[in-house]
């Protein structure tokens, strides 16, 4: 039981790093935005483990919810005029 939280946070940290690399280096823009949202979401779980429920709520509602939506919204608007689809 005593190793459960450290092991969980290790897993979460690893997930965040992988998702961040995908967000920076992945080819598809939509997957990059989703990966950035995943980084925020996992970060909010990690904040909860680090005994900061206020910050966890803010990060989940604002960081991973609103930011991801704003990015997708602008991506949709911009892609409609972009005839060749995905940006490299």
């Amino acid at each position, binding site marked *: 039981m005593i190793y459960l939280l450290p092991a969980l946070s290790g897993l979460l940290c690893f997930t965040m790093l992988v998702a961040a690399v995908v*967000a920076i280096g992945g080819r598809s823009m939509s997957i990059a935005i989703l990966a950035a949202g995943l980084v*925020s979401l996992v970060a909010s779980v990690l904040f909860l483990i680090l005994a*900061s429920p206020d910050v966890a709520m803010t990060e989940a509602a604002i960081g991973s919810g609103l930011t991801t939506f704003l990015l997708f919204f602008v991506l949709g608007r911009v892609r409609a005029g972009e005839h060749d689809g995905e940006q490299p």
Partner: protein
Amino acid sequence: MAHLAMATGFLLILIGAWGALTNRNLLRMIVAFTIADTGVNLVIIAVGYMRGRTAPIIDGAVSAADAVTRIIDPVPQALVLTAIVIGVGVTALMLAYTYRLFEKKRSLDIRDYTDLKG
């Protein structure tokens, strides 16, 4: 656990900085900035964490009298609360400008915006 979270936060800042410096797509640069933002918040929260203590809320588990020995530092949490909200404001601003720039030149590539180069 604080060290682990802090190391992850620093790595996220570095990944975000690398992405913002090397990518040429404006939207991708904004994504990189949001990742670096999350990393900074994680580092600040990790600084406030103390092993074996609980969240700074006084309730049935933590009474007002023994709060000093039971709770973690609340100041970094208040700071990060501010930082997250300002972060989304800045992101929205960057996205609005990106939309306007795209409208002007129909391109998201930073190399097409050389008007201010001497």
